[in-house]
């Protein structure tokens, strides 16, 4: 069995936002209204001499117990056997309950207007229907044996993608070692995106 997960090393993320750009081009997201499948949050922590910048890339956590899937009334949100959580735009009625349920702010809306703008912006737009949208771990690339676009493009190799059920996979080893931790595990969502905390260096 395969169970996909991502590990993000906050020590090597330099905040270049290349992941956001690669994802936007790959998945044709509505960037004109600042909506992204993955987003890099930048924060200044501390004061005066002790201040440091921290970049935290955020995306859908492809939870094992996804609240967005539970609340979805039409069955548009579904989970594959490999753990990837997907949205079927044809089936999604856009009630936004998934956005309310997601603790990781991973969902955004794609409207009729966005589809129109998207055709002008991207040319050949793959999407036909408006719906709620989110990161798909680039399932279409993963199925072809490729890595997600954000992982492929990351200049600092901050993003790693792998199979948790393969003990030899570096991602599985990082997670098993406890170095990589999920966000807000106490919510019971069992996320599959893990973070290696930064060393709090000045930079």
């Amino acid at each position, binding site marked *: 069995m395969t169970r996909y997960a991502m590990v993000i090393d*906050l020590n090597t993320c330099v905040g270049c936002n290349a992941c956001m750009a690669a994802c936007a081009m790959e998945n044709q997201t509505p960037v004109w209204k600042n909506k992204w499948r993955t987003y890099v*949050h930048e*924060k200044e*922590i501390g004061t005066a001499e002790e201040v440091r910048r*921290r970049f*935290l890339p*955020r995306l859908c956590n492809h939870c094992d117990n996804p*609240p967005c899937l*539970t*609340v*979805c*009334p*039409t*069955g*548009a949100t579904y989970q594959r056997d490999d753990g990837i959580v997907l949205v079927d*735009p*044809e*089936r*999604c*009625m*856009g*009630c*936004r*309950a998934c*956005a*309310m*349920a*997601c*603790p*990781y*702010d991973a969902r955004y*809306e*794609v*409207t*009729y207007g966005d589809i129109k703008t998207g055709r002008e912006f991207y040319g050949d737009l793959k999407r036909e*229907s*408006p*719906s*709620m949208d989110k990161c798909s771990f680039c399932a279409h690339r993963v199925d072809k044996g490729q890595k997600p676009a954000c992982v492929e493009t990351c200049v600092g190799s901050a993003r790693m993608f792998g199979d948790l059920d393969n003990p030899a996979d570096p991602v599985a080893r990082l997670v098993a070692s406890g170095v990589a*931790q999920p*966000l*807000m595990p106490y*919510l*019971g*969502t069992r996320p599959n995106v893990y*973070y290696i*905390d930064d060393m709090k260096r000045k930079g």
Partner: protein
Amino acid sequence: MDTMTYTTQNIWTWWIAVYLFFGGLGAATLTITFLTDMYCRPHRKLVLWGAISGVVLLAASSAVLFGHLLHHTAVIYVLNPLVLFYKPDAWIAWGTQFILWMMVWGTLYALPYMRETPAFLRLPLVGKLIGSRLAGWLVGCCMKHRRVVGWLAAVNGIGTAVYTGLLIQSFPAVALWHNPGVPLLFTVSAFSTAFAYLLLLLHTFITDENDQDLRHRYERFDLVLIATELVILFSFFSYTLSGSESGYRSAQLLWGDLGWLVGFIGFGLLVPFLLELKGAIRGWSSRLPTVAAALLVLMGGYLLRHYFMYAGVYAYPW
């Protein structure tokens, strides 16, 4: 990952508050009037008002939600009753079915009364439909199984009222919403506003002297429900003060806002409670205080849902 951002949402705003308010009020109104008709005494006018209010309010609330959907044609998946088999974990699926079937059984329960009301028979299209042979056959069936139809409508009505709270409870990131008190609070509020709405009707449009016992009974029920709501709200206050930062920030937003404190707690609960208490103990010489109390409870019902939606705080680790 030692920083957090706390923020409220702007996804489900006033229109969901309207959806929840109209949904709870309409469902509870229909349920109360049908139970009154079945177990207190047959009351044609009350059932007609209850059924029409229920159907109109539920249709209005559903229209508000439908209008805000991103992909309107996909609503067909949730209108299909089979949705309960493939999505039994989604409260919106249950809520949609409760609303639909409450309207169907509610209309059927009221049909015999509609058929004997000249005003309905005079209506252009509705009159023809009600007077048709099919409607006559349906009336016969409904009269034969009166209580079954009444209870089917009432169960779906109660389900709708409870659903409005379960829907908000299903969002785990927000402490104010994700707790078992929410369905209880919203159900109590739905029935309290429904009793207030019916008191308003019984003092304005259904002014029969024989209904004095109903007015007293409804007023007492509403008093108990307002008192229960106050106890639940106090529990919420206590619960949100400690335990999680999300809850604490929600408490600060709610209890630091005059609209919540004075508008909802003061004028939406305490003032009508005192007015109805005086009415229940000593009575009023005029119907004005009871009408004012009912209007205030209805205002409070909306404010509760409005502030609840705006005070939900998400805690993001970035």
